[in-house]
């Protein structure tokens, strides 16, 4: 049985209007099926990883205007308390500190590059951080039966003109959304919209819904910029080995 993702909210309607008219010129790189070609190495330049919400300077974060539409994440009362608790414990409890898979959408705006490989069946995203791969299926397949609990979620996409709309679901609750303790439960569902606004810039928009944590769906957006430096490449960052790699192959 296919798993359909339905959610309501003005944010979805607004996003749909924003993305209804293609801005990607026809002569820009496209696949053999005529789709915008997202292939390349990308990175967000802004600082949402430190805190998705507006914030001043901190010892562990530069100031930022935030990327949450409307300013604040609409937490339920208990969840806001939990977020604040995680904020206070962020130097020890953030799963990033273990080099764990960052999840969706955090891996997209984390300040390390990722490479997109694209064919007619899927986009494969290879993240430098933790050297993990995420697959966005564009082959018409639908979500598997639930209950698996993916770190990145399961991603199934369809093209809406030149915009790639991705339904992401079946998450576990282990990832954070940033370093400031913003979080979700296993009930999280994400709708992503990927749009090339020119050949070197992606507008990434995500709407998050989680009935256990948020009072309503909310959205964020960032721009991703193509790395064009000659010879630039993703370098394996398997930082999760740092705690023990000194012992191999033979202790020094």
């Amino acid at each position, binding site marked *: *049985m*296919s798993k359909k993702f339905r959610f309501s909210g003005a944010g979805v309607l607004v996003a749909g209007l924003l993305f209804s008219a293609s801005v990607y010129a026809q002569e820009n790189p496209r696949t*053999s099926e005529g789709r915008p070609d997202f*292939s390349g190495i990308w990175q967000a330049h802004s600082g949402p990883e430190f805190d998705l919400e507006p914030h001043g300077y901190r010892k562990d974060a530069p100031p930022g205007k935030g990327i949450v539409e409307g300013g604040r994440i609409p937490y339920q009362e208990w969840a806001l308390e939990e977020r604040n608790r995680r904020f206070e414990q962020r130097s020890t409890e953030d*799963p*990033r*500190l*273990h*080099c*764990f*898979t960052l999840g969706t959408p955090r891996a997209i705006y984390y300040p390390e590059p990722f*490479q997109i*490989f*694209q*064919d007619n069946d899927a986009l*494969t995203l*290879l993240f430098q951080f933790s*050297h*993990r*791969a995420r*697959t966005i*299926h564009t082959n*018409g*397949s*639908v*979500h*598997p*039966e639930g*209950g*698996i*609990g*993916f*770190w*990145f979620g399961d991603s199934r996409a369809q093209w809406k003109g030149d915009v790639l709309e991705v339904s992401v679901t079946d998450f*576990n*609750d*282990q990832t954070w959304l940033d370093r400031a303790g913003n979080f979700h*439960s*296993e009930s999280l569902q994400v709708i992503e919209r990927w749009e090339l606004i020119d050949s070197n810039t992606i507008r990434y928009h995500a709407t998050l819904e989680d009935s*256990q944590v948020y009072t309503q769906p909310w959205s964020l957006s960032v721009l991703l910029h193509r790395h064009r430096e*000659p*010879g630039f*490449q*993703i*370098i*394996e960052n*398997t*930082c*999760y*080995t*740092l*705690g*023990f*790699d000194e*012992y*191999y*192959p*033979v*202790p020094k």
Partner: protein
Amino acid sequence: MRNKSLNTLKLSSVALAVSFFAASRTTVLAQGQNAWRVPYVYEIAQGEWQGPRLADGQPDVRGHWSNTIGNHNNITDPQGRFPLDPPSANEKPRDTRAPSRLVLPADGEFPLQPWARAKQQEFMSNLYSATRPEYVEPLARCAPGGPTKSFLWHGYEIRQYPNYVLFLFDSGTRLIHLDKTGEAAPLDEDIKLWNGDSRGWWEGNTLHVQVRNHNGKARFGRTGEFVSEHALITERFIFDNDGERYRYEADYVDDTVLTEPIRFAIPSRRITEDTPQDGWNNITFAVNYPGGVTRGIEAYERTCVENNGSHGDVSIY
């Protein structure tokens, strides 16, 4: 809020590794594994590719694959027991089991220098009682398998794109740059990586790869053999024109650890939706399409250290 189904439904790479560690004393194989595994390494000649090609001209070898002999329990006797395990009642004669993973030297033995042999014996002897950090086999910590060991373990996937071949393992990811123009400069030698930095090219049915910048930390198996970061590694992925099999070869030259060069040979077969699920070679699920249709297979999410508990999860910051 922990997803209770995570540990029961998800086939964790680490859970499988740990479970096989526990079972290694009796070398019990599931029925599916027995059907998949063969006691020989087939020869495939390098030559013309006559199969389908991708738009950029690469031979199309995309899909799910797995080695046909066994795992990394014992490099020189890959279908035999771990050397410290007692023989089982149904242990087959050596000449009926698969040969050593090494085809060079000709005797199949790992030609370690005396100091390295002493270390290998120490690692092997202490595998079951890891009282020191180095006695834990690194793959049990979810460290990447390294250029060669990655092909000895679970099933994996090959994806291809213009200028790249991408390998997705349960134990990490490996990207082969198909450098034709030389624009992508090799990495500085001080950058050391578990899977190294790989540059390759196709000649007929063979993908040739040179591996640089590897850190030599992966070790080759539970028997503890290793090389250093100074090893020169060249690989050949030789694909049969039937598109169903390939032979992996890897040459290692390391005069700081080895007494002579070595060559690995690992046979692999393609996994399809008709391949029996066995929890080792084939860890995939059927793909859903609208209307209740299922077609093709996908692998589960490849995460390891996240589910490894304290065994390998060590905070880095």
